[in-house]
């Protein structure tokens, strides 16, 4: 096991002590305790100064209590014995007041699912980064940006996850993450750069800042381009966003059972080009996550789209039997939402970003998307805006900046129109929250639909 030393938000021993207070709860048939803890230092800057600077330390214990085939959860952030027992009591009371749940699969046991190992994508320097260290990073970003109007974050965080149940499951994992983002607004245009890793030393803040400044300087005097369907290069931030939404819309087994997922009617069919392989793979070198799901089932790498063909969803103990599949260890913590693919990886190809662009005769380079939302799940139809760097490509080279577009586009149709995949796989923290990661390279997409334009 990795030496977690002093900066771990909560130790395995403290987790065991908290869980031990309630695992043998009187009257319960089985008890599970999930403990999550985080220490997050986040420094926000805007207008080239620090505007918010926070350190947050929280812990949550989720006590799931089973009474026959009834189950309920009570959570607390106070891990003393009395509070843990009170949470267990509230959960038991709630479980007894609910109708039986014949689909409840029971809590896992080691003999049923095996014992999960942690991945420990952990960096002690990141976990122990001080406010001064984060401020130094922001200073470096601002210097490299050369701008008096840069905005973004520099964040270091440490996270622990543990599942212990009365049937013998006991697992613990921890990871760290460092994220930086930089937007440069030079008054005439904006540009964007970002970087993330589990280790602070691997995050090149100056490169992110220079990328943002370069895009801003190339974005002056944008022209208005006609909405329509165009060939595009999606840089990694843009393709990762599509992957995050593809997961949200339909990689989970419950969405398949309910008929909402593209996998419900197209499993085994071609849904993307040969170039596309998408997996949920926490073990990928770029991924940041944990080695088990939130009921302690070991996590498996699951290929969801294999060289263009829809293969299968991620599952959990409740949903796997409904589809005749094995559990893959993706319980999200919510039976209402179902299993979730939180470590999506779009496998990289062979072409460099320059080679991708060289193959575009007339199209657009897209840096990233903004405010994406779902229009239709089964067809994976999304809308959203481009922002912080969209450029016309002519003859394989950047020609001129253009005003931002609103897109209306099916993710699967974009993947179906993908002619090449970049070799620049890049990791991103999820758009909201801190659990999991998205890994994606650049894509060359033959047809991407822009529905309207805006004035900047």
């Amino acid at each position, binding site marked *: 096991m990795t030496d977690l030393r002093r900066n771990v938000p909560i130790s395995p021993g403290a987790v065991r002590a908290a869980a031990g207070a309630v695992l043998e709860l009187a009257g319960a048939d089985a008890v599970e305790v999930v403990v999550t803890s985080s220490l*997050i230092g*986040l*420094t*926000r800057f*805007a*207008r080239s*100064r*620090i*505007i918010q*600077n*926070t*350190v*947050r*330390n929280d*812990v949550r214990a989720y006590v799931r209590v089973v009474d026959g085939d009834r189950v*309920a*959860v*009570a*959570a*607390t*952030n*106070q891990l003393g014995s009395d509070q843990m027992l009170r949470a267990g009591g*509230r959960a038991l009371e*709630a*479980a007894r*007041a*609910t*109708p039986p*749940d014949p*689909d409840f699969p029971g809590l896992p046991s080691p003999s049923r699912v095996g014992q999960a190992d942690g991945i420990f994508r952990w960096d002690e320097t990141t976990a122990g980064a*001080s*406010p*001064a260290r984060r401020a130094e990073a922001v*200073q470096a970003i601002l210097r490299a940006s050369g701008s008096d109007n840069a905005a973004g974050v520099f964040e270091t965080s440490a996270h622990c996850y543990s599942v212990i149940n009365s049937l013998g499951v006991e697992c613990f994992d921890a990871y760290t993450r460092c994220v930086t*983002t930089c*937007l440069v607004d030079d008054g005439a245009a904006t540009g964007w750069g970002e970087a993330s890793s589990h280790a602070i030393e691997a995050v090149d803040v100056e490169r992110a800042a220079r990328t943002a400044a370069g895009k801003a300087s190339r974005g002056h005097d944008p022209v208005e381009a006609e909405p329509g369907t165009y060939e595009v290069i999606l840089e990694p931030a843009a393709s990762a966003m599509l992957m995050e939404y593809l997961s949200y819309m339909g990689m989970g087994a419950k969405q398949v059972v*309910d*008929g*909402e997922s593209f996998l419900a*009617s197209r499993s085994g069919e071609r849904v993307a080009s040969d170039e596309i392989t998408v997996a949920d793979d926490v073990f990928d070198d770029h991924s940041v996550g944990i080695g088990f799901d939130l009921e302690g089932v070991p996590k498996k790498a699951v290929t969801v789209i294999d060289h263009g063909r829809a293969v299968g969803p991620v599952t959990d103990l409740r949903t796997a039997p409904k589809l005749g599949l094995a559990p893959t260890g993706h319980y999200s913590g*919510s*039976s*209402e939402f179902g299993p979730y693919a939180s470590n999506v990886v779009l496998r990289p190809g062979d072409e460099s970003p320059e080679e991708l662009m060289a193959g575009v005769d007339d199209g657009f380079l897209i840096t990233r998307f*903004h405010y994406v939302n*779902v*229009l*239709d799940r*089964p067809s994976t*139809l999304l809308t959203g*805006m481009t*922002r*912080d760097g969209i450029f016309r490509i002519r003859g394989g080279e950047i020609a001129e900046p253009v005003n931002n577009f*609103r897109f*209306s586009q099916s993710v699967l149709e974009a993947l179906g129109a993908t002619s090449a995949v970049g070799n620049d796989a890049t990791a991103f923290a999820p758009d*909201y929250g*801190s659990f999991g990661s998205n890994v994606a390279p650049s894509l060359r997409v033959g047809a991407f639909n822009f*529905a*309207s334009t*805006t*004035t900047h």
Partner: protein
Amino acid sequence: MKDLLRAALDAATDAGAAYADARGAEIETESLSVRGPMVEGLDRSSSSGFGVRVLVDGAWGFASTATVTTEEAARVARLAVEVGRASAQVAIAPVELAPEPIHVDSWESPYDKDPFEVSVEDKVGVLTAATEEMAGVRDIRIARGTLDLLRQNTWFISSEGSDIHQRVLQTGAGIEAMAVDGNDVQVRSYPGSFRGHYANAGYELVEEMNLAAHAARTAEEAAALLRAPECPSTETTVVLDGHQVMLQVHESVGHPTELDRVLGMEAAFAGTSFVGIPDLGELRYGSDLVNITSDPTIAGGLGSFAYDDEGVEGQRVDLVKEGILVGFQSSRETAAAMGAERSNGTMRAEGWENFPLIRMANINLLPGEGSLEDLFADVDNGLFLSTNRSWSIDDKRKNFQFQCEVAWEIKKGKLGKMLKNPRYTGITPVFWASCDAIAGPEEWEMHGTPNCGKGQPGQTMRVGHGTSPARFRNVNTGVAQ
């Protein structure tokens, strides 16, 4: 909690903070989801902790913890000061705060019936009475009912002398029917989408909704949408119901008038705004009919409170008056930055662990005249859109697109056939300028949206919007694909 906060405040000022506030909270929630006859999830939670915010050398520092001990209070306060000192290394000008009177007060949101005292059996029964009826309708794949409760006690003290205790009880509930036919998935919900209707209220809110009475219609409309034609792509007159006007106000008026966005402080994440300080009193935001306020003083909204999370008294202020931009939502820092005499009190934080941000309170479109039917009466050929399903808007809050659950044709002032997948798009000031009718007080309702995201680390805020149905001319619907 107050003794602990006092210890934190003392430690912060001893460590060199020129200003400090400490905010502690105890939060209790219950979330119930049923599907057909089954309970899909029953989660209860309790959380407590506190955060310390300081100004040191003219810069902000903040630290929070779930460990509620006096020793931890002092440690966290010193950490907040350390964070503030680090911030000061990258500062251009010191933060100044607009003055605010000292407040020593307590306040509680009103309610009739404590929902935490209602038995789980009764709550499950109320939901399953509706969901079982919906599940019996042909083509309904998911019949879901939800009920969400929150009780939050918040204590705020500041080094200026304010000492405020607020206690809020919020209740939300709703039902949703999802119909599936092959790849066609259609949804109807009541009384609103995304887990229903929320308010500062007790269990009486759930009883007033009478979910079971609306179950059959909700499910039948979802099923009927499977066979309805697509909403056409055209330019036409649209009438939006109050629920959709809520989202329209939220995205295209509420967010753009947050002063932190206007000043560029949210540029990297949520974006900025198409309006600027010089637009105040000058910019035509909408037609003469458009009057929009920020009003936490009104009872019952999710954004109803007496004081914000930096101890500023809640105030009703005009944002748009007779179509002209006349106000922003502000904090003490941003108010001072734009030269205002006082913040209008919109700083709020999710839970105890977060730094407060400018967040909408209740952003209300004031009512006009007449009924919903009166809005239809002046439409020869148009669309009536109901219940938000999806939303998106650009980083300056200008180019937007919304999707609703359902639309009906309006022909010669009367509702016609049902249409599915209705979407419309627009440019914010152009759209609001096309508003030619807003229904009257009899149609005006306070809606609540419990899932407004903003900030880094991300915070989810509960905000209110009082709206009536409204009519807009020359709107692009359908949207090219």
